[in-house]
């Protein structure tokens, strides 16, 4: 921004491009970014100029006084329901097993609910886990979890920042109902070489970065490997010692500037989880993504980005028992072209337009079995769909107080041949089938998604905002168990499965205090969802060619209020976030056709995060989480079938898991910092109070008394202490 002309300021786009228009003259340019030192540059403007900057990390410096910006973006930007975190923001927050995890930290923010212990899935404003679009350098990550959900696929060393849009996403994003999580990888240091890493109890990390050609290009490679399974090797039991349980992942990125106007980026991710039990059972799964991007500056007003993206998620299972030798594989694979233009018509007048084209192929399941096995080899037919969209949006200041962003996304979803397409009656029996050849269109779905958000500044430090968004979703994750499994399958919309549609209206009040040292926001939303998916009683989702006959279609609605108070500067920083919400569903034939709470319906959700810089060496931090238990279906009666106790159910999701609460503490000791070496130790204790938060609740026969049944609650962890050593040279 220009110090002398605060209204002429700009926020860079995600590639760092910005455009400021101002009358000729002398100015002071202030360049700032969360947790980075603010740079001040004298500027004499008499013609179009291009200026590039790189900012230094604030690092261990204590309470840098932020050169007060009169405008703070949270108040003035029309977009609402946006949460942005940089890895620097989260570095002091307590973590599970010493593994910094940006997905876990996001779940401490309002409107974003955790899936629970041992689950990296998250729920945004009542949406289900598969309604979040998770992007890593623009490539879709279909399963963002490692070790069945204990860790996320995002290695904090490789990540620059994440932005989460809660429903009101800009028109350039599409494909999911509930949210967009846009993760950007680090670009690497373009000035000098660095090696950094960390040693933890569960995993270790190594990160190498440096210039390719000084100031023209840089690269970064980050790797991570968990080694909890090494402890299994100590076991005397041969089945246990030959078991495996680990993950690794690799992030790599390079960028190169071809002159002033062109910038190329290449980034990729590869991750794998391996689980094995003796020689009887083995499973591996993982994501692969690759992104090639070309930024081009046509002129000082027009910026273009072209991306070619590849993304794949697959799993393999091997079962060896008795004479059964069975392998099962499944994948989803995308080729994606994205063309985006940004036109800066004036300092507060920006147009964004472009197109998206994605070719999805899913292989829902393929079974290969040996001749002697009890199973037949079988391959379910691949599903091929094309998802294309045109979009445009316009950012405009109608007056110094009133900012609007409006846009439209027009999406076409085409279900393609080849294949046999069935239609089913209500009982799930095939009533008709049609064979389509390759490249024939089976079904088209066309959807218009209008987006509107506006902000009105009440004072220089407060504003009200309003937004309406329609989103649609054409890929659906089939998951009918209490936790998400790596084997859950994505299916596209089809002649039977209709696109999910959501309409969300939200309103908010934003207020900054004491020169932006405190931020406060209150947002409220109402979301209506159509064509939601549930499963018939006893649905068979595995290796089922007619899986679409096992689904039910219904409605959903969700509403709530989110309160957020954040302290940005000082020795003590942190935030308090509270969400009061309700999420319900209605399906014909379920719960006597009445509305019932969704599993993830949690009335109260509270998070408190505090970070205290004790001295130059020590930083203490703590977080506290409380939320209402999930809505669950529990039996209230029992009867006997063939001598076994069976349970009687009355109401869908009529009961509640016990409430969850957890307090974590962490301390970071900064080692001596020299020009060539720095290090830190992190000590953390997860679940300080040792609360037995329920992971599952089981209704069963009492093993000690044949005349009784009992309810048993399982908790995963009580205290989890960890130590991590981080270094950089």
């Amino acid at each position: 921004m220009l110090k002398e002309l605060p209204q002429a300021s700009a926020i860079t786009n995600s590639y760092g491009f910005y455009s400021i228009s101002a009358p000729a003259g002398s100015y002071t340019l202030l360049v700032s970014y969360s947790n980075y030192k603010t740079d001040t540059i004298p500027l004499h403007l008499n013609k179009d100029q291009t200026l590039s900057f790189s900012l230094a990390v604030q690092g261990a410096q204590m309470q840098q006084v932020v050169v007060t910006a009169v405008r703070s973006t949270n108040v003035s930007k029309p977009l609402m329901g946006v949460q942005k975190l940089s890895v620097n923001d989260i570095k002091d927050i307590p973590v599970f097993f010493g593994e910094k995890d940006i997905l876990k930290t996001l779940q401490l923010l309002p409107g974003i609910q955790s899936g629970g212990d041992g689950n990296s899935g998250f729920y945004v404003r009542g949406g289900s886990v598969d309604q979040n679009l998770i992007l890593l350098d623009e490539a879709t990550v279909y399963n963002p979890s490692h070790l069945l959900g204990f860790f996320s696929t995002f290695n904090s060393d490789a990540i620059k920042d994440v932005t989460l849009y809660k429903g009101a996403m800009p028109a350039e994003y599409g494909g999911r109902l509930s949210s967009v999580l846009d993760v950007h990888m680090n670009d690497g240091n373009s000035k000098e070489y660095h090696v950094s890493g960390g040693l933890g109890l569960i995993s270790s990390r190594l990160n190498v970065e440096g210039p390719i050609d000084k100031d023209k290009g840089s690269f970064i490679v980050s790797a991570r490997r968990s080694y909890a399974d090494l402890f299994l090797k100590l076991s005397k039991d041969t089945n246990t010692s030959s078991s495996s349980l680990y993950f690794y992942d690799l992030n790599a990125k390079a960028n190169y500037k071809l002159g002033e106007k062109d910038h190329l980026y290449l980034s990729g991710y590869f991750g794998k989880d391996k689980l094995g039990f003796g020689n009887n059972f083995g499973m591996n799964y993982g994501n692969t993504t690759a992104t090639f991007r070309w930024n081009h500056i046509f002129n000082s007003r027009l910026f273009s980005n072209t991306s070619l993206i590849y993304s794949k998620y697959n799993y393999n299972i091997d079962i060896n028992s008795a004479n059964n030798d069975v392998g099962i594989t499944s994948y989803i694979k995308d080729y994606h072209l994205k063309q985006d233009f940004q036109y800066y018509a004036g300092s507060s007048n920006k147009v964004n337009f472009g197109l998206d084209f994605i070719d999805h192929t899913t292989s829902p399941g393929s079974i290969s079995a040996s001749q002697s096995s009890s199973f037949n080899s079988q391959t379910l037919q691949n599903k091929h769909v094309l998802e294309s969209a045109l979009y445009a949006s316009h950012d405009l200041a109608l007056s110094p107080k009133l900012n609007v962003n409006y846009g439209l996304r027009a999406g076409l979803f085409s279900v393609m041949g080849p294949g046999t397409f069935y239609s089913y009656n209500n009982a799930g029996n095939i009533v008709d089938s049609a064979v389509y050849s390759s490249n024939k269109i089976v079904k088209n779905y066309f959807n218009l998604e209008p987006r509107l958000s506006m902000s009105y500044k009440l004072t220089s430090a407060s504003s009200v905002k309003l937004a309406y968004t329609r989103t649609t979703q054409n890929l659906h994750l089939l998951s009918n168990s209490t936790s998400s499994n790596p084997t859950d399958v994505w299916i596209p919309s089809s002649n039977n499965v209709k696109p999910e549609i959501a309409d969300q209206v939200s309103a908010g009040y934003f207020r900054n205090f004491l020169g932006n040292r405190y931020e406060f926001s209150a947002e409220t939303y109402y979301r209506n969802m159509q064509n939601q998916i549930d499963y018939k009683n006893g649905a068979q989702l595995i290796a089922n060619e007619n899986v679409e006959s096992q689904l039910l279609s219904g409605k959903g609605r969700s509403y709530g209020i989110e309160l957020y108070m954040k302290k940005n500067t000082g020795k003590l920083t942190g935030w308090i976030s509270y969400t009061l919400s309700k999420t319900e569903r209605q399906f014909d034939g379920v719960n006597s056709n009445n509305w019932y709470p969704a599993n993830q319906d949690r009335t109260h959700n509270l998070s408190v995060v505090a970070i205290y810089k004790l001295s130059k060496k020590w930083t203490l931090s703590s977080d506290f989480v409380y939320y209402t238990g999930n809505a669950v279906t529990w039996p209230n009666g029992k009867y006997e079938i063939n001598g076994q106790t069976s349970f009687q159910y009355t109401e869908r999701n009529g009961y509640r898991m016990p409430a969850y609460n957890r307090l974590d503490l962490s301390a970071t000791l900064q080692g001596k910092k020299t020009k060539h070496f720095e290090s830190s130790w992190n000590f953390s204790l997860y679940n300080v109070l040792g609360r037995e938060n329920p992971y599952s609740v089981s209704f069963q026969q009492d093993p000690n008394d044949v005349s009784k049944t009992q309810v048993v609650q399982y908790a995963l962890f009580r205290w989890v202490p960890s130590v991590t050593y981080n270094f950089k040279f």
Partner: protein
Amino acid sequence: MNKILLILAGCIFIYSCEKTITPNLDAPTSQVVIQGNVTDAEGPYTVTINKSVGFYADNTFPAVSGAVVKISDDMGVTDSLTETSAGIYQTHTLQGQSGHTYTLSITSNAITYAASSTMPAAVPLDSVTLNHTSGSGNKRIEAIANFQDPAGVKNYYQFEEYINGQLFTKNFYIFDDRLSDGKYIANTLRTDSSWINKGDLLKVNMYCIDENVHTYFSQLIQSSGSGAFNTTASPANPASNISNGAFGYFSAHTVRSRTITIN
């Protein structure tokens, strides 16, 4: 660019735990539960009628006495069952045969419940073999039922184990040939800990059941209330083949058995 990397020795202290809880559960409406079987073995065949109770009540299920119970076949035979003890009704003359449809009719407290089931063709049980496994420190013996699945037809199977004459009631075993049509099947009857021991006499019964009965047991297993893998996030009462909201099932099935001594 050097420095020796520190090797961390740390102890992981995870404490996972279970405890019994007593959540407040509403009183359910007591439901009529009917279990009826007709087989290709010799009769008499039994129909049991009782009622469901609240979750925290004792496992004693009140018998429903005084019902009028009839089973008829598709050849014009109707057998009126006699209540031999409270809630247990037995046939007199009926003989089950593959390929025939049997209809159950019960009138109790002025409500009539009806069900029908068709007995599939029998599939021979060739042998029962054993699988010795060890895992998590304990050794287990599991029975394997070996049989040839007939190609080109849908087959649904149910198994029951009797250990020293006692019905094993920790698990329901069902199998279908959806992914195995025409294969020679070795179906392991899994147990979760060591129930079968050396010296035991083990009898395995294999039943060929019809599709509705298979669906019933498959839903019953998925709704078993354990909240673990394979059980659904939204359990519900299984779809019974009996009308008028009764719980339970009516199954016409074949029986083939093998008995072995565990060594």
